[in-house]
């Protein structure tokens, strides 16, 4: 893989509202190469809203998001080229097979030079399911199809909303190992979860929402 400059994501005084309710405000943190941030908080504390705001799917109500020191709106294509987002919705077409789904993801985002969709599906434990319509897969298997993207994309920043949901014990281990490897390569990960996850690299930094938390 080519040598890529290290990127930074910086959040300054970020605040979001939902309806009339203030979810969080004055949030500050910075994420650099090889760092993991775990966002915690009760249901409804704004974790998903924060993650969608970080991706640029939602405009922040106050504050700024800086990518390599530039406001997000000004570096959209460069930022998107380095971003993989997996949200609540798996973002796969149930009428397409896992292989066809990954071909679309590969068209929309930058893939690794050695990207191999079959190997990625094998890595997430979907060997033998490549050519079945995703409609016939279980919720956990569909989530695995979405997660197979992580093995294909050549992106630095992963934003994962509840990635461990619907996964079995082996799946959780597989994803934790995948995140470890990404971080070891200098990647950045922001994720939310309610489960206790053990990473090889130790306990990640955490940001607690709803308690005026700071990372």
């Amino acid at each position, binding site marked *: 893989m080519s040598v890529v400059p290290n990127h930074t994501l910086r959040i300054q005084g970020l605040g979001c509202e939902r309806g009339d309710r203030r979810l969080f405000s004055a949030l500050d943190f910075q994420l650099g190469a090889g760092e993991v941030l775990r966002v915690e908080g009760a249901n409804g504390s704004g974790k998903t809203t924060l993650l969608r705001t970080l*991706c*640029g*799917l*939602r*405009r922040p109500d106050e504050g700024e998001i800086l990518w390599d020191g530039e406001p997000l709106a000004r570096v959209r*294509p*460069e930022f*998107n*080229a380095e*971003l993989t*987002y997996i*949200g*609540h*919705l*798996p*973002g*796969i*077409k*149930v*009428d*397409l097979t896992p292989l*066809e789904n990954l*071909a*679309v*993801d*590969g*068209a*929309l*985002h*930058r*893939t690794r030079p050695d990207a191999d969709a079959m190997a990625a599906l094998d890595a997430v434990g979907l060997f033998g399911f490549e050519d079945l*319509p995703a409609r016939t897969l279980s919720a956990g298997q569909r989530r695995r199809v979405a997660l197979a993207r992580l093995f294909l994309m050549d992106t630095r920043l992963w934003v994962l909303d509840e990635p461990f949901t619907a996964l079995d014990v082996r799946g959780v281990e597989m994803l934790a190992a995948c995140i470890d490897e990404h971080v070891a390569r200098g990647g950045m990960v922001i994720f939310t979860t309610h489960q206790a996850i053990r990473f090889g690299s130790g306990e990640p930094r955490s940001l607690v929402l709803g308690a005026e938390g700071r990372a």
Partner: protein
Amino acid sequence: MNLFEVTRRMLRRDLLLAYRHRGELANPLVFFLIVVSLFPLSLEPDPRLLATIGSGVIWVAALLATMLSLDAMFRPDFEDGTLEQLMLSPHPVALLVLVRVFAHWLVAGLPLILLSPLLAMLMNLPGEALPALLASLALGTPVLSLVGAIGVALTVALRRSGVLLSLLVLPLYIPVLIFGARAVTDAAAGLPWSGPLLFIGALLALALTLAPLAIAGALRISLE
């Protein structure tokens, strides 16, 4: 990956999805056929009367049939999260949505054009009107898909948007309807019909350049 390859793969995806749902593709076509055939049944079956109203009837039916198929453009993508992935792509979103609209036109607009000679016969339109009907539909239906896509993009986040979508989009279809029906009527009367056709061409050029930007912007708002 270059933009040509991206376009090719996205178009392939959309056509593949349409093919997997091929049962639904015929619905707007059957609707088109039924609406047009209601007129000879409800009015006097006088061939001269049918020939007079034929151009307008076929065009109105084409508008309504297009309306029926619009929701399929972005709603499924919104509901399964693939729209989020599309919006977070580093490629120009306007181009990606244009591919989506083109795929919609291929499966929903083009069949209407192919079916229209049959309806022209049903409405007793003279043979001279047929080239005008085909040409005006060929230039007009892409405008219907493009303008309709703006409406869908604006209403995709609302749960029950069917009526609202019609109220938003149908008024915007009026210019296409006027010039489309005019071209066919003029041709049937043996008059030159290039004027109205050029107007539809201008509308198409306008929609082709501006609608993708409007669709991309509307989708961004809908996702917030």
